[in-house]
């Protein structure tokens, strides 16, 4: 069923009785052309683009829990393409373009809201490095503006301009950046993929990979063996665990990233703002909650819950940047399991196992990549060659020394 104003009214008048499941509750078939492991945004988008762009529809997405139960369901929803390094910009900009046409493409309102992403700077050195980044964006045809202090004040009047420990000097703004409704992205891709014939299999955990003579044959799951011509691995925080099933070690460490929402309030913050003198970022959801977060917890973890030290640090940053937050209340705090790569940039590549493809290392920034990652992984799986926009995201870059290290933090995942 296609969503339309007509359907909406019709169902309103008939007790909402006409709606159907947005995706079928599929059971695994014995075999598929392609199996995607991981029903997060990336896995579902991959399946959708396999079907849409390459007409490969005999596809299953296998998800151990409910779709979106991973980071897709717990991120702070920021989308942007304000990257600095040549390997990154084209990829994230491809993503940005896909966001801009997503609702019509999927016939699902994912609430993509291009309200602007503003990164504050507090020193000349930071301004120069933002300028390097902003100019790189402009050169790639991406929008970027460097704002002076007063222009920042006009956008976000409640920032601490007066008594700050680290006074705000200005900001780098990407107007096309913003937020999207994270769960809706998952559901929208699921529904669109399902409508093209993809099987979405929930509550089915992949427990092993069947590999013979260096070639993938299928996946062992809690619902039995599922044969596959090709397998795409899109399991974010579980990357190392699933890759280990193919005997692979990855340049990835699992970490916790915490996020927070406040109680819901009338609009006070119109764009996404990030602090340059610490780790903090905030936006306000359409529902009215302030959604914010900060630094990741520094130690490897699979626990999906954070530490008090980081909790306190985030609140200190919050009040330092926006003193008006002081009396507002934290409603809920949670943690996601993120796949921090050694240079802070992702990996989309084939693996040494024939037919097994890997997508991961998205760190704390893969939500914005959801459409582009799906697009590029589908391209790789279908064509056997990397998509040009993701051509830098290869595994051998570590051995070769062409890391894509935006922050210059080196092989310390917790510092990216």
């Amino acid at each position, binding site marked *: 069923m296609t969503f339309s104003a007509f359907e909406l009214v019709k169902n309103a008048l008939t007790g909402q009785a006409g709606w159907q499941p947005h995706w079928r509750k599929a059971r695994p078939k014995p075999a598929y052309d392609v199996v995607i492991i991981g029903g997060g945004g990336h896995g579902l988008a991959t399946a959708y683009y396999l079907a849409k762009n390459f007409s490969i529809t005999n596809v299953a997405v296998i998800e151990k829990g409910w779709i979106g139960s991973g980071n897709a369901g717990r991120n702070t929803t920021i989308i942007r393409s304000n990257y600095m390094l040549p390997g990154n910009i084209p990829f994230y900009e491809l993503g940005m373009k896909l966001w801009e046409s997503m609702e019509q493409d999927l016939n699902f309102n994912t609430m993509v809201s291009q309200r602007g992403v503003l990164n504050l700077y507090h020193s000349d050195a930071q301004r120069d490095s933002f300028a390097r980044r902003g100019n790189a964006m402009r050169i790639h045809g991406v929008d970027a503006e460097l704002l002076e202090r007063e222009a920042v004040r006009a956008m976000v009047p409640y920032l601490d301009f007066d008594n700050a420990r680290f006074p705000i000097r200005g900001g780098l703004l990407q107007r096309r950046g913003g937020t999207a409704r994270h769960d809706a992205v998952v559901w929208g891709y699921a529904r669109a993929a399902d409508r093209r014939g993809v099987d979405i299999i929930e509550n089915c955990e992949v427990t092993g990979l069947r590999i013979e003579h260096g070639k993938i044959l299928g996946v062992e799951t809690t619902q039995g063996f599922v044969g596959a011509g090709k397998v795409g691995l899109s399991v974010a925080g579980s990357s*190392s*665990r699933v890759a*280990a099933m193919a005997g692979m*070690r*990855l*340049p*990835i*460490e*699992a970490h916790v990233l915490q996020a927070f929402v406040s109680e819901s309030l009338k609009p006070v913050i119109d764009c996404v703002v990030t602090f340059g003198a610490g780790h903090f970022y905030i936006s306000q959801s359409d529902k009215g909650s302030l959604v914010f977060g900060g630094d990741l917890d*520094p*130690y*490897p*973890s*699979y*626990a999906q819950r954070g*530490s*008090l*030290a980081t909790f*306190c640090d985030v609140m200190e940053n919050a009040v330092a940047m926006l003193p008006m937050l002081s009396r507002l209340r934290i409603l809920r705090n949670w943690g996601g399991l993120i796949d921090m790569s*050694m240079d802070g940039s992702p990996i989309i590549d084939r693996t040494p196992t024939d037919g097994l493809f890997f997508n991961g290392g998205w760190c704390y920034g893969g939500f914005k990549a959801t459409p582009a990652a799906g697009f590029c992984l589908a391209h790789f799986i279908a064509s056997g060659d990397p998509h040009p926009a993701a051509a830098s995201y290869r595994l051998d870059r*570590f*051995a070769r020394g062409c890391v894509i290290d935006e922050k210059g933090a080196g*092989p*310390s*995942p*917790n510092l990216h």
Partner: protein
Amino acid sequence: MLINCPFCGLRDLGEFSVNGEAVARPVAHDDFDDADLRASFVDAVYFRDNPAGLHREYWFHAAGCQSWLLVERDTRTHDISKVELARSQEHDKEMTS
């Protein structure tokens, strides 16, 4: 998380900084361009077991006794089963090898 520093006792996470998995530095030989040697460094510097379970890692008691610690911790529960001074550990290794 509290870490039981062998010197300082139970201390809050906030006093420490962590270096990730305790990976041994490969032993270099004279041919610094040797492919295997380079591969062993690439592996040690970039690649991780990243287990969901017991993890051996180095921590630095920065706001305390300034010791590097070898910590054994479960990455699923954060339960810490062992903490020792990294130097005594390495020292022992050296003595026995």
